[in-house]
């Protein structure tokens, strides 16, 4: 069964063009880019070509791109670099809805002597800017706010953030793992100091990421070793994946318009029809400022894992904000931070699209999902009909 893949915020299909660009680097061009001989050295030139493509996608200069192994490494590198370059400052400010790569790192740092402020969000997942401003101090070493939320797709006001933070001289890092490739990004337009991204969210393979470090930003490497990446990240380059990420950068740039028109249209159609056909259904998050591909929908009084597994029977792949799928017992920290009621949080499903999705796929979900929800609701002791008067 061909999967109906609607879990692109988890990972994306590697574009065939990307795979093709990588293959020679597994077979023919296996040289080490650091070598003196032409055989290796020419690989180094291809890496720089990929770097230029990556930089183009972000509006950066090639020398501002550091290749890493994943989004998490980029995040850790950024935060630790900011803290090491400002040893006197002991305060970190971030949001309550960050990806675990930032959230768990900050919680860890809070135990090792740093003070961390987690800025709350409102019921639509919008950042409380007043709270943020009130909690900036002269002791603040770094502010880290995601560009777009992985669960809801809600986009934070990056322009406003950079304005506030640069005025206060605070280093600004953004985890843009979900945003890069889906919405236009220009790091030169605003003062972003560091930006993390991950290859496998934009049709490159898993195991490759990048960190943008604005020229002039104080930096120290996270992986200490050789001189690779101009001494900013030790370790022999993941050549094939870097080439793939370069190709993927071009690929998503070519499809940026499609992502924001056709993909957005499909997402909106899916969302509207599901809300229309299924009662007691809510869309989570600020729908005015949202990624074009993401929809977080809560089906009240049923539980997410059950929905996912029943959809799985039809080959539909999505993910859930419920507790049961992750093995933790509480629903997602993002939905909780937004104050989404438990009735809805446990039954939240995230659909995340890509350019590979088609309209017939949407129609199939719209056909298959309502009976699944009906069936689970008929089983639920809390469901008393669509009047919403469940106990």
């Amino acid at each position, binding site marked *: 069964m061909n999967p109906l893949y609607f879990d692109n915020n988890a990972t994306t299909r590697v574009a065939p063009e990307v795979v093709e660009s990588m293959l020679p680097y597994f077979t023919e061009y296996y040289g080490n880019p650091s070598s003196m001989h032409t055989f290796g050295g020419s690989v180094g030139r291809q890496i720089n070509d990929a770097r230029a493509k990556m930089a183009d996608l972000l509006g950066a200069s090639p020398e501002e791109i550091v290749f890493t192994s994943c989004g998490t490494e980029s995040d850790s590198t950024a935060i630790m670099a900011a803290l090491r370059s400002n040893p006197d400052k002991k305060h970190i400010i971030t949001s309550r809805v960050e990806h675990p790569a930032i959230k768990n790192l900050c919680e860890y740092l*809070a135990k090792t*002597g*740093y*003070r*961390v*402020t*987690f800025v709350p969000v409102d019921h639509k997942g919008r950042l409380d800017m007043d709270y943020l401003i009130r*909690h900036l101090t002269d002791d603040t070493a770094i502010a880290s706010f995601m560009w777009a939320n992985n669960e809801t797709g809600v986009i934070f006001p990056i322009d406003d953030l950079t304005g506030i933070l640069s005025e206060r001289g605070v280093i600004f890092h953004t985890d843009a793992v979900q945003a890069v490739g889906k919405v236009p990004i220009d790091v030169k337009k605003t003062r972003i100091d560091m930006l993390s991204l991950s290859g496998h969210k934009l049709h490159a393979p898993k195991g490759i990421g990048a960190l943008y470090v604005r020229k002039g930003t104080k930096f120290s490497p996270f992986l200490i070793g050789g001189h690779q990446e101009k001494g900013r990240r030790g370790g022999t380059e993941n050549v094939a994946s870097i080439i793939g990420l370069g190709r993927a950068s071009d690929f998503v740039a070519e499809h940026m318009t499609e992502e924001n028109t056709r993909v957005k249209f499909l997402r909106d159609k899916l969302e509207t029809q599901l809300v229309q056909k299924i009662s007691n259904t809510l869309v989570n998050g600020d729908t005015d400022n949202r990624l074009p591909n993401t929809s977080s929908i809560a089906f009240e*009084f*049923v*539980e*997410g*894992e*059950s929905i996912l*597994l*029943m959809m799985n*029977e039809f080959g539909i792949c999505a993910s859930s904000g*419920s*507790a*049961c*799928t992750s*093995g*933790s*017992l*509480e*629903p997602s920290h993002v939905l909780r931070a937004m104050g989404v009621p*438990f*009735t809805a949080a*446990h039954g939240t499903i995230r659909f995340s699209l890509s350019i590979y999705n088609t309209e017939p796929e949407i129609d199939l979900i719209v056909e298959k999902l309502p009976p699944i929800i009906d069936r689970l609701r*008929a*089983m*639920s*002791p*809390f*469901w008393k009909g669509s009047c919403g008067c469940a106990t």
Partner: protein
Amino acid sequence: MWEYTDKVKDHFLNPRNVGEIENPDGVGEVGSLACGDALTLYFKLDDQQRIKEAKFKTFGCASAIASSSALTEMLIGKTLEEAETITNENIAEYLGGLPREKMHCSVMGRDALEKAITCYRGSAEKKIEGDIVCECFGVTDIQIERTVRENHLTTIEQVTDYVKAGGGCGNCHDKIQEIINTVLGKEAPARKKSPVLTNLQKIKLIEQTLEREIKPALNKDGGDIELIDVSGNIVQVRLRGTCATCKKSQITLKNYVEAKLRELVTPELVVEEVTL
């Protein structure tokens, strides 16, 4: 992705005995929306006092639905005395096993069964005995103790897998450990004997604890604390920031600040607030 057995998948995708029974002989309700799973179990007896019909309604994940379905199948044809002997392990076995993290689904089945039988016997539903240990999921010491005993659990993690206790904020982990220790017949680990400190050492240690442990925690909520004086075992502090106006500050002072200082400095300390 969970590794569910074929039997779990079958009972999830084709659950047996879904629904309600009108005028049931026994009903047991457990769980809540907030907890993420809930089960209402119904049964009806025949003339021979055997369960002739058992039905359920469940809100929850695949293994919760499968456990409920399995339980009803196990119940039909049994006398209440026989039914009473069903443990959560029996339910899990019937399904060919459950992932470790999902054992609480089988415990939910057993709890509902127990409630339904109690309901039938008319003994006014036993009040939840014992004291709440896990406030996040409303689990009592009696429930934890029983599950630890029946399933031979030895770690907090296992207790969380089986009854959810400890799976939220984590504040109850010490209490859960105590219960496990009691069941296992172990004494609580002897508290570290506090070394005898000179006054100077004591003050230094208090300062360090405030700076490294307590301040960062209070700062998180916008509060702060200042050490004013140490006289004997009396530690005088002043609360600042949001702590100064917070109604719960006295609780924070005793339950957190004093507890932390007692733990990390010496157990004799008493914290007092100085107000101006």
